[in-house]
């Protein structure tokens, strides 16, 4: 079977799964939903069919599993968002349309040779920096949960950092391809870029109080640097510098200190000062409330989960227990309703996606393509790790989105661009091999 036919067959399977998901939500929440909402599944399938047609026309030799997995991930996210709030699902659906359009646009634009973007690398570099610092702009920037990540323009709000991530990866791929020989020699003057990016990341961290994004960008940078130079010493030095910076930030920034305390000791047996209401309470009733309730949500799912639509997310009076459930904490909702089986399957999807991505990097013939595919794949894996690891208390919690699953426009669009990038590289690599 050709690549695209395999993709089509997988997409049909994804469509069936999506239909089952929406149907089970509909059955369990019949009283609140109309049967018309089942149209979501059909609409969703049609949308991916359109993406498939574009792929067939532009990147016929691209990896056939990336698009179906991305489709399944968005379907899982959309189903859960739909279950939590049908109105949000409509907006998320719109964003997915925009994401697919961006995906199609990128494929059409770059179908001949995507490597033209290599020559715009500084534009991407500056763009990435600008996007990272955009939330700090006085009028449009907005602080949410102690971190300054959002930009507000009229009715729209988005996290520019998500798009900044893609721009950064493109810039790094081009820059490292060019400089990798000199960097590998390890002369002090060549450490300039490394130090300046380290400084930039720390600056972002200081300015936005956003540990998660800093970790993500810096991690992507180190990963790509390692692929380009094959020098473990660089990675070790980079990690060392990151730790130094992190300790400094920990000392200087109460917000980051709280996050670390919530991570190390979410439950206290004695009352501690609660800055939210100025009283003495247990930490689990104050600062670590969100983390702790999210763990309860996950634990409540147990092995098999409560089933879609049967999870408990609100109190008896209708108040939502976990704040940010649809965005940062969607994993806790999914883990409760789908159980360990479902959560493990979801993580397995991420693994397969990332492995396919690395496979693209391995078979790619030129340095830029390799670095680009590796950066996109590793960024995808690292972002998943930072948010899910934060929820699961593997690392301190920082609010970023779960790629393709969380509610949020900028995240959806940027991850569709990431998908487009991987498929473009894959198409070229497979065409060369064939």
């Amino acid at each position, binding site marked *: 079977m050709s690549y695209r036919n395999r993709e089509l067959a997988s997409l049909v399977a994804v469509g069936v799964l999506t239909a089952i998901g929406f149907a089970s939500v509909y059955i369990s929440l019949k009283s609140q939903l109309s049967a018309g909402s089942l149209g979501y599944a059909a609409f969703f399938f049609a949308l991916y069919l359109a993406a498939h047609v574009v792929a067939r026309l532009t990147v016929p030799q691209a990896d056939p599993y990336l698009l179906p997995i991305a489709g399944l991930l968005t379907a899982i996210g959309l189903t859960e968002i739909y279950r939590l709030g049908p109105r949000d699902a409509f907006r998320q659906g719109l964003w997915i349309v925009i994401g697919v359009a961006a995906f199609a646009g990128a494929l059409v634009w770059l179908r001949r040779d995507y490597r033209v973007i290599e020559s715009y690398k500084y534009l991407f570099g500056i763009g990435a920096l600008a996007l990272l610092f955009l939330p700090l702009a006085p009028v449009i920037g907005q602080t949410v949960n102690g971190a300054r990540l959002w930009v507000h323009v009229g009715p729209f709000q988005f996290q520019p950092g998500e798009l900044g991530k893609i721009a950064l990866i493109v810039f790094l791929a081009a820059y490292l391809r060019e400089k990798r020989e000199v960097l590998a020699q390890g002369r002090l003057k060549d450490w300039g870029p490394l130090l300046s990016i380290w400084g930039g990341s720390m600056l972002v961290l200081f300015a936005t109080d956003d540990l998660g994004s800093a970790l993500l960008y810096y991690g992507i940078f180190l990963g790509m640097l390692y692929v380009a130079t094959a020098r473990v010493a660089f990675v070790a030095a980079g990690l060392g510098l990151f730790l130094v910076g992190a300790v400094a930030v920990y000392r200087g920034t109460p917000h980051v200190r709280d996050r670390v305390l919530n991570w190390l000791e979410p439950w206290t047996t004695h009352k501690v000062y609660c800055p939210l209401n100025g009283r003495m309470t247990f930490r689990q009733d104050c600062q670590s409330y969100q983390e702790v309730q999210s763990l*309860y949500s996950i*634990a409540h799912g147990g*092995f098999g989960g409560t089933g879609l639509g049967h999870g408990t997310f609100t109190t008896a009076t209708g108040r939502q227990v976990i704040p940010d459930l649809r965005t940062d904490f969607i994993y806790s909702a999914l883990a409760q309703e789908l159980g360990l089986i479902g959560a493990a399957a979801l993580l397995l999807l991420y693994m397969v996606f990332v*492995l396919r991505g690395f496979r693209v990097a391995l078979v790619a013939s030129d340095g830029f393509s390799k670095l680009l595919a590796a950066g996109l794949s590793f960024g995808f894996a690292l972002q998943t790790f930072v948010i899910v690891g934060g929820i*699961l208390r593997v690392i301190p919690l920082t609010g970023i989105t779960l790629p393709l699953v969380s509610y949020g426009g900028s995240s959806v669009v940027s991850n569709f661009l990431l998908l487009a990038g991987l498929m473009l590289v894959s198409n070229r690599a497979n065409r060369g091999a064939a």
Partner: protein
Amino acid sequence: MNRPLLRLSVVSMLLLVALVVATTYWQAWAVGGLRDRQDNAIQQVAQFTIARGRIIAGNEKTTLAANRRVRVKGQTFFFRRYPQRGLVAQTVGYSTAGGTRAGLERSLDDYLTGANTNLSSALGHALDELGGTVHGNDVVLTIRPVAQRLALRLLGDRCGAVVAMDPHSGRIYVMASTPTYDPNLLERRNGYARILETKAECPRPAPLLNRATAGLFTPGSTFKLVTAAAALDTGAYTPDSGFVDPGYCVEYGQRVSNAGNPDQTGPETFGHVTLAQGLEHSINSVFCNVGKKLGAKTILEYAKRFGFYSTPPLETPADERAPSGLYDRGKLYWPKDFNAVDPGRLAFGQERMQATPLQMALLAATIANGGVVPRPYLVQRVVAPDGSVVASTRSQTLGRAIKPETARELTEMMKLVVQGGTGTAAQIPGVEVAGKTGTAETAVSHVYDAWFVCFAPADHPRVAVAVVVEDQPNGFGGTVAAPIAKAVLEALLRG
């Protein structure tokens, strides 16, 4: 570049595998600990989205605990209601919207919420979830509502307890404790305070206390059954062993008198009597002398065989049951030095002996059961929503306490008590009843805890009963407790 690429892909996989491991930890390993945490808001809500199983009495018609459905913003919650109010209140317990539980509602929570699901019914459970509400299992008790209601009515405003059971199987028919309370009140405003303010004819009404299993009372002369069992079983005495009763017994150089004679002019005096007559008329001096000869150790060891000194097994929460035995400063006490225990007074159930009505019912049931202690139980079976039986109780024993011969001799002696002794009020026309009265001294003089333990029919026992009525001014076991025991026996033998 492929080598570092491969390594980076391995690192990525390790990161994601770490997430699988962490998820497994929280969803499999840490589940129990998290579920029980006080601040678990999810659990506090989730427990009420399950349609808890009903608790049904032994006739399968009387529902003791059912659900009321409440809809809040599209979510359905199930809270408890108790249609029979106080009928079996302390034993069934309660489960409130605030999440507090007691009694069987607490100890059988896993069954009632269906959390006990085993793999074979897991599919049914999953289908159940797909269709809507999760349904818990129904619990069918052994309680007979007619006799239970009768016991409560006869106790009336007095404080006390009645336990009735099948001496062979251990099935408990009646477990009544007064004053009782209406568990529905717990969901009303000030309901808890109103329950605590319940009035009854005793200094500490404590309506939430299950007197049948956790109420500790001085057993008085009903404990003579243990002493007599030890006396016969060790071979030290026969029912015909002779005694001379001068109206008192001498211990540590002091007189320990019999109970007062009917004219209240002094202690009753019987002269030459046998051990059997000693039990028939409940003569303290006889048992005092038996106790002195056997020693406290032997008596207590026999008590142990009947189940004293261990918490009787039952489906209710362990902290709602108390072990019987000697109590010293509020704690169960097994003497290191038996000289510290007065054997004469122990022999007729005074000293510091404390017993629960359940334990005394077990004592009667053991004698009725030929000397083997039956294992008491309240839950007949647990039924899944689809009608299949999840669990069903089979009768078990807790071991042999006395020889069959001893049990037979004790039965004969207990028959005399009802035929012509202190327990004549328990006579039932056409049925031979074996019983023993007890009138235990309390801290206030002339105020007694009145006891009666019995079983019937004496030769083919079907029911064993223990009754205690607290703080009765000039009320005796034979006059206050025996009529209640008789009525409960009649009701159960009829049914």
